[in-house]
């Protein structure tokens, strides 16, 4: 009898990329719902716009590169990029702004570097930074979070959609009426005005830890993140590293001088810290890959976030911190090779 030959091992793999990406997307669902609840339906429109353009960009680039588009679309990685970008953008963002970020992330940061697996930079963060340098004004349009005692102007679904499509607010409204400075902006401006961190924290917008609404989204992101940890889709080193790198110096400075330095709780829940720790920095392709390397990679990101928040001109520093550490990955990986069984590490240059 004749048989078909093939290479060992003869055993089916346990998982696949598409299922990993889908689980990451699933882990984002609770936080997405919270986002819609606090900041309105704009998030959904951003998600749709980013998703559509990321998918189109991915398909187009696969076609240009002469590869079957369905392969890349089937792994859902473009949708993860789109979702992370949508989380990073204010709920009021005109479609062309979102589209620019999504297309830049997928076309330039991902495919021009060789596609999934070869991109040096995190596509979502590259897309965010291109928005930051091309349309900086739109990143200040964070609507005030829905909280009972804050008086602010609601935008209806239709009004939000109109803004997303045209960039125009209803006639009666101005940007100032609907948008609020984010807690990180308030903190930065307040400190520049010589207010103490404690005084600034007393503003209602600051919430209990890191800002009304924001801290709740952070909670739901953390739930999703822990679920990914339990499912071993991400490993603990990067989230813990980001925590050490950011909260370590933040706590130290807070203890040293609580007047000018907000505490670790604020740093943890404000801005995109938790999103970064569990979902952005953990993008395996652009992160360090050895266990020790991932810890260092995370610490580097956390520390850079803290530096940018403290001394930089931007309120938050997640995108720059991630992109800078992306560049350090090859060196980190080479210097943190784990001990290979049977090797004498004294001679073998392992870090």
């Amino acid at each position, binding site marked *: *009898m*004749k*048989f*078909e*030959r*093939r*290479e*060992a*091992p*003869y*055993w*089916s*793999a*346990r*998982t*696949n*990329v598409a*299922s*990993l990406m889908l689980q990451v997307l699933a882990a984002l669902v609770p936080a997405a719902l919270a986002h819609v609840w606090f900041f309105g339906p704009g998030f959904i429109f951003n998600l749709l716009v980013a998703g559509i353009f990321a998918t189109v960009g991915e398909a187009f680039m696969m076609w240009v590169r002469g590869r079957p588009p369905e*392969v890349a679309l089937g*792994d859902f*990685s473009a949708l993860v990029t789109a979702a992370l970008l949508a989380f990073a953008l204010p709920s009021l963002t005109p479609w062309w702004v979102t589209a620019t970020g999504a297309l830049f992330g997928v076309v330039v940061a991902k495919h021009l570097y060789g*596609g*999934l*697996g*070869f991109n040096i930079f995190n596509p979502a963060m590259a897309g965010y930074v291109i928005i930051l340098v091309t349309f900086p004004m739109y990143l200040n349009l964070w609507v005030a979070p829905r909280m009972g005692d804050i008086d602010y102007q609601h935008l209806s679904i239709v009004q939000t959609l109109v803004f997303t499509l045209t960039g125009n607010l209803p006639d009666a409204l101005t940007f100032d009426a609907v948008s609020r400075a984010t807690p990180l902006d308030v903190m930065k401006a307040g400190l520049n005005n010589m207010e103490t961190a404690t005084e600034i924290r007393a503003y209602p917008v600051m919430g209990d830890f890191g800002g009304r609404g924001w801290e709740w989204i952070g909670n739901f992101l953390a739930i999703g993140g822990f679920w990914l940890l339990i499912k*071993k889709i991400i*490993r603990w080193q990067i989230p813990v590293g980001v925590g050490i790198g950011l909260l370590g110096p933040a706590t130290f400075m807070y203890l040293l001088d609580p007047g000018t330095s907000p505490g670790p709780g604020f740093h943890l829940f404000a801005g995109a810290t938790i999103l970064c720790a569990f979902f952005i920095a953990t993008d*395996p*392709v652009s*992160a360090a*890959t*050895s*266990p020790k390397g*991932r810890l260092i990679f995370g610490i580097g990101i956390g520390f850079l976030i803290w530096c940018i928040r403290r001394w930089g001109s931007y309120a938050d520093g997640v995108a720059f911190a991630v992109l800078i550490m992306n560049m350090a990955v090859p060196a980190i*990986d080479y210097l943190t*090779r*784990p*001990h*290979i*069984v*049977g*090797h*004498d590490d004294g001679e073998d*240059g392992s870090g």
Partner: protein
Amino acid sequence: MTAPTYDLGKLHGGLRLPGHKAESTSNPILDIPIPAQLILPLEQHVGEPAQPVVGIGDRVLKGQTVAEPDGEMGVPIHASSSGTVVAIERWPVARRHGEKAPCIVIESDGKDEAISDTAASDYSALAPADLLLRILDGGIVGLGGAVFPTAQKLMQARTCDTDYLILNGVECEPYISCDDVLMRERPEAIIGGARVLMHALQVNVCYVAVESDKPEAIARLGEELARVDDDRIVVKQVPTIYPSGGEDQLVQLVTNREVPSGGLPTDVGCIVQNVGTAAAVYDWVVRGEPLISRVTTVTGDGVATPVNVRARLGTTIEDIVKFAGGYTDRAYHMIIGGPLTGKSVSTDEVPVVKASNCVLVVSKSSYVRGELPCIRCGDCAVVCPVQLQPQQLFWYACADDEQKLRDFGLTDCIECGCCDLVCPSHIPLTADFRMAKGRIRELADEKARAERARHRFEARNARLEREQREREEELARQKAAAKAAGPAAIAEILRRKQGHDEDDAS
């Protein structure tokens, strides 16, 4: 007797895999009748193929040597039954590269007539060195699949300070159960073999390592140990994790000693032998039967009744499966060995050889894979028992970066296949690494060749230079001699000329 699981070293990574062993262990070992034709490949061990010492038409008896060892790593091959040599020709065999290899084909006469052999009734009276030679004559090689000549391995261990003999009854690879049933059915042969090996090695501690999923085997070995009352031998239960049965991995588990990169277990005072090898040693040294049969697992969803069989070496898989219940409709791939490290063959005409621990016949649907780019998730590094980083190795293998491949330990890869199993991108990492290793070997060979050529070239240049120098020196010497002899010679010439002139004048 209970087998202790404490006091074990730590193994990095590994995988808990579905065992698929119960299918083939529910029945006792099935003896396969002697087939009409026996196919004996000359290469059933690592090292040079054996040299045939019989001709076509010769009648041979069971246990008769039909091929002698050639070279240091050789072992003899014995006729597995009586009959007539009808051909020495290339025949399909199970190997990774190339489909056919030279084989001695014997048409059996069914009489199974054995040559009278002198079984060493009392091996303990033999000097260890003589015992080693005796083991060599039995044609015994490692039956776990690596087929390293046993006598040579023992001799090497004798030159080192060896503390422990470790019998490998781990059998961690799914589907394979030939060692398990052997431990259940013939514990006396395994323990007896251990005692022979200990005498040959002159070591006083033997660990029999068995995976925790084989309680019956552990119990039977324990009973046998209680019967022979030999407290030098201890059964150690190891956790059921693939690949804890890899040689270096087992040493690490049992003794907590790391076998150095590129080294051998003997570098850390250990020697590992498969339990089947120990039984073969016992059968040869104590019972006088050379290695002419082995236990093989025939399993998978492609065979009707998965079972362990005892077949004469040279029996084709076709004959075995026919006798053991035949194929199912789903039979599509045939793998000789386990599902992770075995070799895929295209025909069931291949014979059972010393290495054949398992015949796995599986359906097509079990593994359809498509390859995506690596996303560097690092799951492969988590499961690697050698703590390599396959994601990095893969990158450098694609880039053909030999130096980086060495830095990241490619040559330490044991090709267990764990990384393939967890890869979400379904990259055939082990196959890629096997290829990259081949390229590194080629490069090293090429380098060595270039080095040799350079040496030859330099030697030739040196010789030419030396000859040139010698010629110049000779010339200079002649010139100097001529110069030194100059005035005298001129005087002589003048004298002669003068004489001549005088003659003319007279």
